[in-house]
C-alpha cells in the first residue's frame, strides 16, 4: 500500500483530500505546516509527498528543498496559482510535478499514480533494458538494468522522474526530443495537459547532477543527450 504525506494548511482541503485519497487506498499522514511536515516526513518515511506551496512557517519550496537533502522520494506540489513563480520555485527545489487547486480527485490520483510508476520503474518493462549492459555518455555511465547512474565513477542520486527522463533521452541518443513528447512519455501527460516548464526544470536539475554539457538544448524545440 502506498503511503503518502499530505502537507496542507487549509483544514477543509487537508481533511477532504486526505479522506478521499484514503478511499482510493492510500495510507495518508497529514501535517498543517512546513516544520510539522518535515517532522512527519522523518517519522513516517512516506512513499510520496503531496504539499501545498503556500504554507505557514517553512513554506512548500523550503520543505521541498529540505526533503531533497536526504531523499529522492517523489514530490507533488499543489499550487493555487498555476501561472506564478511558486510553481517554478517548487520545481527548482526538486518537485517532480505540480497540480493546480482546485484539483479533481481523478486528476490528483492520476498524477500520483504517474509519479509512483516512475518510482517503481520495472527494469524488464523498460525499452532501455534491451540495450547492452551499460550506456556511456562522456563520463556518465547508466546501468539500465540496475538503474544506477555514475558520473566519473561516483554514483549520482537521481529522483525517479530524473532517472526516467535520463533513460528516455538515453534511449534516443543524438535525437532531439520535443518537450511535449517528454511530457507524454515521462510524465504521462496527454496533448491537452502538462506544463513544459516541468520538463525544463527537471532537465535543469538533471544537468546539475550529470553535467550541464551532457544535455543539449535545441531552442523552442527540445533536448538531446550528447555522447
Amino acid at each position: 500500500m502506498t503511503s503518502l504525506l499530505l502537507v496542507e494548511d487549509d483544514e477543509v482541503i487537508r481533511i477532504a483530500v486526505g479522506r478521499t485519497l484514503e478511499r482510493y487506498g492510500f495510507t495518508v499522514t497529514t501535517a498543517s505546516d512546513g516544520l510539522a511536515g518535515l517532522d512527519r516526513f522523518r517519522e513516517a518515511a512516506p512513499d510520496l509527498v503531496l504539499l501545498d506551496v503556500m504554507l505557514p512557517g517553512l513554506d512548500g519550496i523550503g520543505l521541498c528543498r529540505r526533503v531533497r537533502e536526504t531523499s529522492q522520494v517523489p514530490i507533488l506540489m499543489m499550487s493555487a496559482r498555476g501561472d506564478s513563480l511558486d510553481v517554478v520555485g517548487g520545481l527548482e527545489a526538486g518537485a517532480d510535478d505540480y497540480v493546480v487547486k482546485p484539483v479533481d480527485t481523478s486528476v490528483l490520483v492520476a498524477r500520483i499514480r504517474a509519479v509512483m510508476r516512475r518510482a517503481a520503474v520495472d527494469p524488464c518493462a523498460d525499452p532501455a533494458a534491451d540495450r547492452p549492459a551499460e550506456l556511456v555518455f562522456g563520463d556518465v555511465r547508466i546501468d539500465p538494468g540496475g538503474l544506477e547512474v555514475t558520473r566519473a565513477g561516483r554514483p549520482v542520486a537521481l529522483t525517479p522522474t530524473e532517472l526516467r527522463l535520463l533513460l528516455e533521452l538515453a534511449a534516443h541518443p543524438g535525437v532531439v526530443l520535443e518537450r511535449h513528447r517528454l511530457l507524454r512519455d515521462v510524465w504521462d501527460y496527454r496533448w491537452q495537459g502538462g506544463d513544459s516548464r516541468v520538463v525544463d526544470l527537471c532537465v535543469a536539475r538533471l544537468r546539475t547532477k550529470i553535467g550541464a554539457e551532457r544535455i543539449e538544448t535545441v531552442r523552442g524545440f527540445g533536448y538531446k543527450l550528447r555522447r
Partner: protein
Amino acid sequence: MAVLAAVAVTVASGSIGLAIHQSTKSRQLYYGRVTARGDLADTIGSVRADQQVPASLVPPKLAAEALTTTSPVTFYDASYSPQPVMWAAQYVDGNLVVAQYPMASEQRDLEALDRHTFYAAAGTVAVLVPLAAFGAEFAGRRLRRAARTAHRIAAGDLDARIGPRGRAGDEVHDLSRAVDSMADALQHRLRTEQRFTADVAHELRTPLAGLVAAAELLPDGEATELVRDRVRVLRSLTENLLEVSRLDAQVETADFVAVPLREFVGETVADIGFEVQLSIEGDPVVRTDPRRLDRILTNLLLNAHKHGRAPIELGVSGGVSGSVSSLTLTVRDHGPGFPPDILAEGPSRFRTGAPERGRGHGLGLTIALGQARVIGARLEFGDAVDGGAIARVTLPRIPDPTPDT
C-alpha cells in the same frame, strides 16, 4: 502645407515688387513731364515757331491732343526709337511747337530696380519655402504620429505613448501630453479592474478547492449530484474568469510544438462528454500550442452543445504534413445558429445573446477568441446556409525552429 506656404511667399513678394515698380515709374514719368514742359517753354521762348523736330516724327496722338487746348500737353512714347522719350507740345500762333526729353536712363533705372526686386523675391522664396515646408512637415508628422498612437491605444495597445517631443508649450506638444496622460489614466483604470477580477477569481479558489474536495466525500445520491453539478459550474466559472484576466493582461505566450492533429483532436473529443462527429482529411501535423488549441476547441464544442443541436461536427481540412500552409478546424452544429450580435461584433463576456440561450455564462467564446489570438489563429463565426452555427479556426503556418542550440 508646404505648397501653400510657397504660394503665399511668392504672391507677397510679387505684389510688393509690383507696387514699388509702379510708384517708381509714375514718379519718373512725372519728372519726365515736368522736364519736357520746361524744355518746351525754353524752346517756345527762344526759337518761337521754329520747327525743330520733323513733323513726320511727331506722334499723331500728341498733335491731335495739342489741338484741343492752348496749354502744353505731354505724351510718353515708350516705343520711340532708339529710346523712350517724353514729348511736350503746344500750339503757339497756329504752329505746333514740340520738345523731347529722352527717358533712357530712367528706363534703365526701372529695369535695374525690377531686376533687384526679382532677385530679392526669389532669394526670399528660396529661403522661406524650405523652412516653411520643413516646419509644416515637422508639425504634420508629429500630428500624424499622435493620431497613429491614439489608434494603437484604441486597438488595445495600452502601452503605446506619443512621448515628449518638440518644445514644451507648442500645440502639438500639449496635445501629445494630453493624449498620453489620458492613456495613462485609462491603462491604470483597466489594470485595476483586471487585477480586481483576477484577485476575486483567485481568492475564490481556496474555498472552492475545499468545496470540490468535500463534495467528493458526500455519499452518492440525488442531492449529492445536484451539489456536485453546481460545484462544477462554480469551478468552471472561476477558472474561466482567471483565464480571461490572464488573456486580458496579455502576458500569455504560446508554446509551439508539432502536433499530430488526428491523435490530438481524438483526445479532445474523447474528453468532451458528448457525441461529436469527427472528420479529418489525411494525417496533418501542425505546429501549434496544443493546450491552447484544446481550450479553443473545447469551448467551441461546449458552446455548440449548449446552444446548438446535435449532430455536432468537428472537421479538420487543408494542410499537408510537413509544410502546412493553412489548416482549418471547423465546429458545426445544427441549431438556430449564432445570435446576430455575435456575428456582427464577435463574442463579448457574460452575454449569451437571446435569453433562451441562457445556460452558459458567456465566457467560453471570449476565451476561445483570446487563445486564438495567442497562437496566431483566426477564429470566425458564421451560420451555415442550411442552418446551424459554424465556428472556423484557421491555424497559421509556424516555421520549424532552427536547431541552432
